[in-house]
């Protein structure tokens, strides 16, 4: 018994619990911040004010939204499949949280000298991290498909089916762009991949993979936006055709869970992009101990690009989406993969 208590109160265990807490709460807070940022950025681009009444500059708007969603009535269509109808949003949110588990967000730290040995700033350092992220991302689609089917409504079903078709189409290109970076780094661990990107060429160009693999980054960005169902790839919820797509019949917190999953997925895809292509927590001026500041800055920039895209580009047409995915992205990713393989093999890039 004493052994268990000793282990539970060991500094390493507590630090680990703190990291899990940071990731869990951080993702939730990021989702709330993204709701606010999305409305403010949209307002800015449309020359409006956006939310400004609740709190200073409308900063408390997300809290007001959440409270409203908590107290709204929970509706379920009579013909819906009750079990799957409640399961679908849970799958979405769980997959969204889980995908962040193998993502590191800073250099190993001792928490300002409180620990004897530095601890890694990530929930779990899996040696096949890249594949885990890929696998969990492909689980998220079940939430959407089941929501569409369980609602027993034609708009929901069409939205769900579209989403699964879209995700299957873009997953291939997504995986190929991941494989390219894995080959360059010769490792599937995100920590190792980030460590490979430290240092500079000629003393000032950072050794980020985006400079070596611009095509892979482009493919990853397109497929990432498509995987998270964001504009211009937001077909599962195309308002003009499908009302609200897969979550047409959802209300209250169940609807909020889908929304949260979408924002958390955006954060995860951006975090993976930062780690794979933008050098993770490495950057000039800030000492390595505080690398997570760089990580947060890069993450914020990518998330802003997400919003920027949404309010700038119109939605694709469905056939354009499919031909872009299969006839442009996939061949591009494949050729890039083969060229990289040849480069790694013959020139030792």
């Amino acid at each position, binding site marked *: 018994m004493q052994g268990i208590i000793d282990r539970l109160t060991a500094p390493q265990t507590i630090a680990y619990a703190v990291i899990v807490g940071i990731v869990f709460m951080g993702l939730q807070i990021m989702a709330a911040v993204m709701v606010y940022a999305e409305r403010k950025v949209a307002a800015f681009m449309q020359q409006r004010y956006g939310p400004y009444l609740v709190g200073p500059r409308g900063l408390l708007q997300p809290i007001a939204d959440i409270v409203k969603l908590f107290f709204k009535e929970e509706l379920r269509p009579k013909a819906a499949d009750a079990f799957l109808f409640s399961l679908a949003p849970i799958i979405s949110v769980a997959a969204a949280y889980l995908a962040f588990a193998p993502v590191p967000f800073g250099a190993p730290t001792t928490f300002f000298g409180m620990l004897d040995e530095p601890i890694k700033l990530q929930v779990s350092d899996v040696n096949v991290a890249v*594949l885990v992220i*890929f*696998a969990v991302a492909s689980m998220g689609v079940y939430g959407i498909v089941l929501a569409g089917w369980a609602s027993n409504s034609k708009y929901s079903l069409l939205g769900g089916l579209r989403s699964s078709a879209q995700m299957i189409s873009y997953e291939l290109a997504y995986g190929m762009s991941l494989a390219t970076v894995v080959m360059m780094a010769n490792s599937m661990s995100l920590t190792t991949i980030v460590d490979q990107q430290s240092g500079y060429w000629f003393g000032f160009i950072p050794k980020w993979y985006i400079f070596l693999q611009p095509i892979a980054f482009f493919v990853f960005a397109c497929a990432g936006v498509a995987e998270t169902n964001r504009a211009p790839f937001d077909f599962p919820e195309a308002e003009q055709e499908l009302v609200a797509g897969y979550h047409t019949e959802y209300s209250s917190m169940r609807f909020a869970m889908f929304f949260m999953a979408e924002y958390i997925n955006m954060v995860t895809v951006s975090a993976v992009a930062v780690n794979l292509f933008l050098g993770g927590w490495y950057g000039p001026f800030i000492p390595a101990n505080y690398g997570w500041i760089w990580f947060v800055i890069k993450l914020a920039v990518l998330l802003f690009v997400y919003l920027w895209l949404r309010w700038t580009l119109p939605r694709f047409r469905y056939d354009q989406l499919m031909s872009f995915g299969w006839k442009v992205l996939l061949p591009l990713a494949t050729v890039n993969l083969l060229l990289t393989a040849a480069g790694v093999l013959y020139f030792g890039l």
Partner: protein
Amino acid sequence: MASDALLFYLFATITVAGALMVVTQKNPVYSVLSIIAAFFGLAGLYVLLEAPFVAVAQIIIYAGAIMVLFLFVVMLLNAPREDAAEWDRSHPLYRPMAMRIGGALAVLLALELGWALSRTTGLAAGIGEDRPAVSSVEELGRVLFTDYMFAFEVTSILIIAAMVGAVVLARRREE
């Protein structure tokens, strides 16, 4: 370690229960979901055997890609619920020949499983044993592209042939 054995029984229960649910569920969508649960249990077992790559690859390929397609088709065709009570005696499964062969196969399977069970020493054998730490991805890749090169290439040719066949069958005839 005791916790490893505990996890083994947890994942084994998920796998077996999921597999049983696949055949007992009346709604095909629930069957598909049960098999996904079984795949996750299986992935957990692979992780316990220190083969994370196999676990993740299995999730990506089976749970992530193939079962999504299954679900897609089941939903698109709106497959009806299956009630055994609705089958009448004219159902093909009630033919005497089918029942005899099916019964014989079932007895054979039961005998084989009993024999296999009698030869295993412990249910959770091999779980939690210390193994030399190898980077499983590297090791797997090396074995796949040297010792099993031929089988690997033949399998990929088989898959390409199936894909080309599917495209040829599905393509609309041009006038």
